[in-house]
C-alpha cells in the first residue's frame, strides 16, 4: 500500500465530525417516519412509543448509526442487511386474498408491552398465535415480521445530514414548501450553476432555504452568497437548521430584499446617532446595533451593485423574468444562470422571453427524471411509486451585450 501520495493536510468540514450539543438532528424511527429533534444538553429525548433516551448519550457519536434504546441508554446496533423483505407489492399467487388475522387482541399486546417484553418477543408470540402463518410464503412471513418489528422495536437511526438527505427529508415532508426541488434537481442546479469553493453567487430562494443550504455547503466557508428575499426582516431558511453548519460556513451569506436590492431606493434606517445626549447603556447598545445593521446593509448593497458575480440561482414564487432583468446586470460575463420551477409553463415562457435578448446565451429547458429501484435479491425492480416531478430547470449563460 503506497501511502505517500496525496495531501497530508486535514480536510476542513462544513459541520463537526461528530454529533454536538445544539445540533438539530433527523431521527429515523422504525416506522420509517423521520422526527426532527434538537439536542439540548442534559435533556431527555422522547420518541413516543419508540421510547425515550438521555440526549447526552449521542454527543460525540458519529452520524448515521442506529441505536436501540435500553433503559434510556443507547446501544449502537449492527446495520440491517438485504435479507429483509421490503417490497409490499410482490405478486403472490398462492396467498388467499384477504387480510392477516390479528392473532392477539390489542389488549393482550398492551399487556405484553407493559410487562417489558422485548419487541422481538412480542412478534414471536404473535406468530405463534397466528394460525395461518405457516401457510404464508417466505416473502409474506418476512413482510409480516417487518411490519410488527416496526411497530414494537425501540430504536432509531441518526440520519447523516448530507445535503441529499436533508433535501430528501424536506421533499418527502412537503414538496410544495421545497417548490419541488427534489435531491436530484438540487444536485443538478448546483452543478449547472457551477458552484465552487471561493465563488461569488446570487440566489433567490423561496424554497425554504434548500438552495441556500446546497450553495453554502458547496462554498464551504469561502466565497460569497447574497440572497434577495421578499420580506423586510432577514429571511428564514428553515432547511439550513438541519445542515448544522459551522459559523465559518454561514458567515459568507448576506441577504437583501426586493426593496433594498433596488439601486434607486434609499432604505429608511432609524437614526443610529442619538437625537440628544445618550440616556442609558441600553439605548447606547441599541444605537450601536442599529449602526451595525445599517452598515452591513449598506455594505451588502454596495457589494451587490458592484456586480461581477459568478452565478445566479432562482427558485422563486415570483416572475422569473423580472428577477433576471433585475439581477443579471450584477453578473460577470460567462456567469451561469439557473432557474428552477415546479411548472414547465414558467420555464418555457421564460426561455421564450430570453430567446432574443443578446445577454443570455444558450437558454435550455430540461426536466428532471429520477427513478429508484428496490434491489432485494431476486426481486429487483423500480419502486412501484415514484416522485412525479422534480421540477424543470432553465439554464443560460450571461454574456456581454456588445451594444
Amino acid at each position, binding site marked *: 500500500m503506497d501511502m505517500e501520495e496525496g495531501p497530508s493536510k486535514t480536510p476542513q468540514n462544513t459541520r463537526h465530525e461528530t454529533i454536538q450539543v445544539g445540533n438539530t438532528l433527523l431521527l429515523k424511527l422504525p416506522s420509517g417516519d423521520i422526527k426532527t429533534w434538537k439536542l439540548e444538553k442534559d435533556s431527555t429525548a422522547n420518541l413516543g412509543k419508540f421510547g425515550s433516551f438521555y440526549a447526552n448519550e449521542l454527543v460525540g457519536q458519529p452520524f448515521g448509526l442506529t441505536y436501540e434504546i435500553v433503559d434510556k441508554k443507547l446501544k449502537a446496533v449492527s446495520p440491517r442487511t438485504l435479507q429483509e423483505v421490503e417490497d409490499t407489492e410482490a405478486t403472490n*399467487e398462492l396467498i388467499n386474498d384477504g387480510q392477516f388475522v390479528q392473532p392477539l387482541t390489542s389488549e393482550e399486546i398492551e399487556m405484553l408491552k407493559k410487562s417489558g417484553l422485548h419487541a422481538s418477543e412480542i412478534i414471536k408470540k404473535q406468530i405463534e398465535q397466528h394460525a395461518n402463518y405457516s401457510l404464508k410464503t417466505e416473502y409474506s412471513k418476512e413482510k409480516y415480521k417487518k411490519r410488527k418489528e416496526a411497530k414494537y422495536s425501540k430504536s432509531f437511526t441518526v440520519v447523516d445530514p448530507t445535503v441529499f438527505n436533508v433535501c430528501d427529508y424536506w421533499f418527502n415532508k412537503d414538496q410544495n414548501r421545497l417548490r419541488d426541488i427534489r435531491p436530484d434537481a438540487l444536485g443538478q442546479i448546483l452543478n449547472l450553476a457551477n458552484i465552487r469553493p471561493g465563488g461569488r453567487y446570487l440566489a433567490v430562494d423561496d424554497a425554504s432555504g434548500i438552495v441556500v443550504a446546497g450553495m453554502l455547503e458547496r462554498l464551504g466557508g469561502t466565497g460569497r452568497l447574497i440572497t434577495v428575499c421578499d420580506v423586510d426582516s432577514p429571511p428564514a431558511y428553515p432547511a439550513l437548521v438541519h445542515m448544522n453548519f459551522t459559523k465559518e460556513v454561514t458567515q459568507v*451569506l448576506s441577504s437583501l430584499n426586493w426593496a433594498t436590492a433596488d439601486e434607486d431606493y434609499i432604505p429608511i434606517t432609524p437614526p443610529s446617532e442619538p437625537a440628544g445626549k445618550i440616556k442609558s447603556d*441600553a439605548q447606547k447598545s441599541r444605537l450601536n446595533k442599529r449602526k451595525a445593521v445599517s452598515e452591513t446593509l449598506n455594505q451588502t448593497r454596495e457589494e451587490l451593485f458592484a456586480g461581477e458575480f459568478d452565478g445566479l440561482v432562482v427558485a422563486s414564487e415570483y416572475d422569473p423574468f423580472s428577477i433576471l432583468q433585475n439581477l443579471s446586470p450584477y453578473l460577470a460575463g460567462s456567469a451561469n444562470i439557473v432557474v428552477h420551477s415546479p411548472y414547465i409553463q414558467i420555464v418555457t415562457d421564460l426561455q421564450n422571453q430570453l430567446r432574443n435578448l443578446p445577454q443570455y446565451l444558450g437558454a435550455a429547458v430540461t426536466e428532471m427524471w429520477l427513478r429508484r429501484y428496490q434491489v432485494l435479491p*431476486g426481486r429487483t425492480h423500480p419502486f412501484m411509486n415514484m416522485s412525479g416531478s422534480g421540477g424543470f430547470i432553465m439554464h443560460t449563460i450571461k454574456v456581454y451585450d456588445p451594444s
Partner: protein
Amino acid sequence: MWSTAREIAAGDLVIVWLTRDAVQPLVITPGKELNGKYGVYRHSDLIGVPYGSKIGSRNGRGFIHVLRPTPELWTLALPHRTQILYIADIAFVSSWLNIKPGSRIIEAGTGSGSFTHSVARAIGPAGHLWSYEFHEARVNKAREEFSCHGMDDIVTLTHRNVCKDGFTVLDTVDAVFLDLPMPWEAVEHAKKALRKDRTTRICCFSPCMEQVLRTVTALNDAGFTDITMYETLLRPHQVDSVPALPHIGQVSEKLKKAEQKREEKRLRQIANSRASAAGKRKRPGDADESDGGRAEGSAGKRPKTDDEDDVLQHEDGQLPQAENHPSGRSAGAAETEEAKFPQSVTESATPTKTTFSKTFPEVRGHTSYLTFACLLPAIPSAQADPATQEPVPSD
C-alpha cells in the same frame, strides 16, 4: 358483453360515478337502494334513464352520474383484490399482441379480470379468450363476474396450474399473455397452443428484473424471435388555472411602503413619548423597541430583533426549529394556499389567469416489465412454387 341500449334496464351493470375517487359498479336491482354520502338513490329510479345521466338524490342534496361500463371504468371501480394490471399496460400489451376482432387469445392467470374484460371487448363475439387461473377462489369469483357481464360466449375460464398442466388448446391461438410468478415454466406450453400458420405473439408480465432474465432465456430456447422488453406508464398531470406570477417590482413597492409606514409610526411614537416625557422615564426606549408593526409580508411571523445578522445565528437556535410544523417564511396564511399554488402576494397581482400543470406528486413508477416475442410461421420445408400454393380466397 355489457348493455349497448341507450337506456338503463333492470339487471344492467352500471358504473356509478360519485367523485373521481369514488367510482363503483352497481347491478340494477329493483327494490334496492344505493347510499351515497349525500343521499339515497333507488335502483328503480334509474331504470329507463339514459346512460350518462346525472341523477339527484331523493333528498336533493347529492347527485351521481350513471355510466355505461367500460373495461377501464370497471378496473377503476374494482375493489383491490390482487395486483391488478394497469390500464397503460393493458392497452400496450393488447396493441403489441395485435388483439383485434376475431382474435383467439390465451391469458394466464385470470387475476382480477381486468385484462380479460379489455380483451373481450377487443376480440368481440367473433373471437375467443381462454383464461386460466390457479387460485380457486379467484376462479369462482371471476366465473360469476364474467357470467354476470355476459362474457360466457367469449371467455372460457379454466381452473388450472398451466405451468404444470399446460393449456387446453393446441395450434389455435394468435397470442398468449402470461401473468405468472414463473412465466418461463409456461413458455413451452404456450408454444404448443399457438397456431403455426402465421406470426403469433407472446407477452410475459413480470414485476422483477430477475424474472425477465429467465423469461428471455426460456423464450430464446423455445425458438421465439424478436424478443424485446418494454415498460410503459401513464403520468397523470394536474392542471391549475392561477393568476400570473407577480413581478418582483410589486413586492419591492410593498416593501418600500411598509418601511415608510414603519418609519412614520416610529417617529410618531417618539413624538408621543416626548410629549409625555415629563411623566415617565423609560418610555422612549420602549417606543423605540416596539418599532411599530411589521410589513404585511411578515405578518404572523415570530417577533425578531432587528439585528440584520441573526440569519447567521442558526447554531444558537434563534431561528425557528423546523419541527413537525415549521414556522418558516411560508408558515403564515400563505401556507395552506401554497399547497395549491404559490400565491402569497396574489392580492395585488393582475387578474390574468394562466394554466399551469405538473405531474402529480406521486405517480405509478412501475407496474411490470413487459417481455414480448414472436413465433414465426413454420417455413415450408421446400420453397413452394407460387402456382402450387394454397388457393387464396377472394373476398
